[in-house]
């Protein structure tokens, strides 16, 4: 029933004329024992869906903020298995859907069988694997076949129209639209091409599209939200937790009822 939680969330938001606000946190940054309270804080701030980041030693798609959070988590001795075990214990306390954002190697090392069982037990609705593009997805997809876990795909500015059609075909959960050619957490003044690209992805995709990478304030979230079904904020939220300024999370979330996609 977990995969459907994503669909239900987007359906509800759409019915309400609202967009999804998705928050990323690095599991284990600040101690795994605080994961539950971090998730609670996000829920109470009005977050609709949570991406739970899995720390990795070599995060080539991440900027400094998430890199450093990952290092802190690893220094706390946190592993993917620990995170899944923790989620399994607290899942009944969490009402919003949550997905994992992880590089492929921790999953591969755990083995896909174990990962699948543990992730299902942990109530995980989906998985985003930034270093597994469509061309390398078969192994992961086979491993998760018949499970309740959606594989959430990414589309970028450089994704061709033809490839975009392949990516959105049979896609699950939502499409993660990467707004920059770069890593997470960059400073951005989004250019016109970004909005054009979001419109392009939105036109092709049969499932919701959410924009992420470099979104760090409410204005940006509103602007990107106008073209999509939701926005993802990562580095900014990781930084807020690290600095203990959790009250500021709700200030990032746009007011209800943004304009619909034109």
């Amino acid at each position, binding site marked *: 029933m977990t995969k459907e939680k994503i669909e239900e969330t987007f359906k509800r938001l759409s019915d309400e004329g609202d967009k999804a606000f998705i928050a990323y946190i690095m599991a284990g940054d600040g101690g795994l024992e605080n994961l539950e309270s971090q998730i609670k804080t996000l829920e109470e701030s009005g977050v609709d869906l949570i991406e739970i980041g899995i720390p990795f030693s070599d995060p080539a798609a991440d900027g400094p903020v998430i890199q450093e959070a990952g290092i802190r988590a690893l220094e706390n001795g946190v592993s*993917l298995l620990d995170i899944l075990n923790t989620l399994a214990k607290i899942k009944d306390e969490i009402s919003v859907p949550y997905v994992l954002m992880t590089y492929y190697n921790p999953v591969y*090392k755990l083995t896909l069988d174990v990962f699948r069982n543990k992730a299902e037990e942990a109530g995980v609705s989906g998985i985003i694997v930034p270093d597994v593009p469509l061309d390398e997805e078969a192994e992961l997809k086979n491993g998760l076949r018949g499970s309740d876990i959606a594989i959430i795909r990414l589309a970028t500015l450089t994704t061709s129209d033809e490839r975009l059609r392949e990516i959105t075909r049979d896609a699950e959960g939502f499409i993660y639209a990467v707004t920059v050619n770069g890593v997470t957490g960059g400073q951005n003044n989004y250019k016109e091409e970004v909005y054009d690209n979001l419109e392009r992805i939105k036109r092709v995709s049969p499932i919701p599209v959410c924009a992420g990478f470099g979104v760090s304030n409410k204005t940006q979230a509103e602007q990107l939200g106008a073209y999509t079904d939701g926005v993802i904020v990562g580095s900014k939220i990781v930084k807020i937790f690290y600095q203990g300024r959790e009250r500021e999370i709700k200030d990032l979330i746009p007011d209800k009822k943004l304009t619909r996609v034109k």
Partner: protein
Amino acid sequence: MINNIKSPNEAGKFGIFGGAYVAESLVATLEELETAYRQAKADPEFQKEFDYLLKDYVGRENPLYYARRLTEKLGGAKIYLKREDLNHTGAHKINNAIGQGLLTKYMGKTKVIAETGAGQHGVATATIAALLGLECKVFMGAKDAKRQELNVFRMELLGAEVIRVEQGTATLKDAVNEAMRYWVEHMDDTHYIIGSALGPHPFPEMVKDFQSIISKEARNQIIEKEGRLPDQVVACIGGGSNAIGMFADFIADETVDLIGVEAAGKGIETNETAAAINKGTVGIAHGAKMHMLQDEDGQLLATHSISAGLDYPGIGPEHSYLHDTGRAKYAYANDKEALRAFYELSRTEGIIPALESSHALAYVIKTAPTLDKDQIIVMSLSGRGDKDVELVKNVTKEGNTDD
């Protein structure tokens, strides 16, 4: 079985290894690179330019040298050294740097980036950037940069900008990550010259291609000198560009044993090692599936080798494949064995080898006496040891070579 050992399939897979595990943003750039590479490979003008620079700029072909005194001292197989150390810039790295540098121009790009551990690939890239008029940035772990100050200056002297990477363990693997991050942001006008037979498709295939000149020459040379193929072909292996270049044209020769020699560091029984095949497991990092040193949670481990050029947790995907199929064997030598070999070649032949190459040499020194006198070993002397002299001096002073 050997006939089944092929270059990668269209998806860049060597058996289960290789592939292109990269961010979606990079997919289009890798496709562009592959298309350009296939075109260049079929373009006689490109080949002509590559061959010309290898000859007149690098100084190829370099000799296959019969190490008579070493052979006699060891009393076993005849030892031949493929003298990559005589190349311009002092190692095999320049072969690939020239190939990819020309490819950069072929694609109409004006800038190159590279990662470097000890600085050899960084120097090679800075060199060809100067030669070809390309702007060059080299990413180097801050720890490595500190250990190799002279090479940092050398790169700067050649007009490159050296970016010290503080992230992670501040060594080679982190320099690779940071170069990847930079590349995603600048792929429009920048090519990333990966220095080893690593990374996402088509890099491992391409690097092999540009380095295969080593075995192409060596194979002809040994046939000319001995009238037959060697019994063993030996090369040191970190990421694996020298070894794959040394193996390439011998892979189809079933009678030739191929041996890659990994850096065991302080010993493969310790955690201070870089022996990815002998101690590692299969995983995915830096764009490819390969053997690598990782913990049970799938985190890459910090590595150690006296030779910075071998101090890397992974190994090129084709080597993983050659290992799995049994076509190549992967041995190892530790720091002390490499140091002893470093001295041995210096004193027996008057050739100071790179510490990387000294690992292959340590294996040869161990193995040659067990073989018959009519057997032949061809070893890649991948680089010269000038860059290591200071380090060896310091280590020797500490008395670390004795036990």
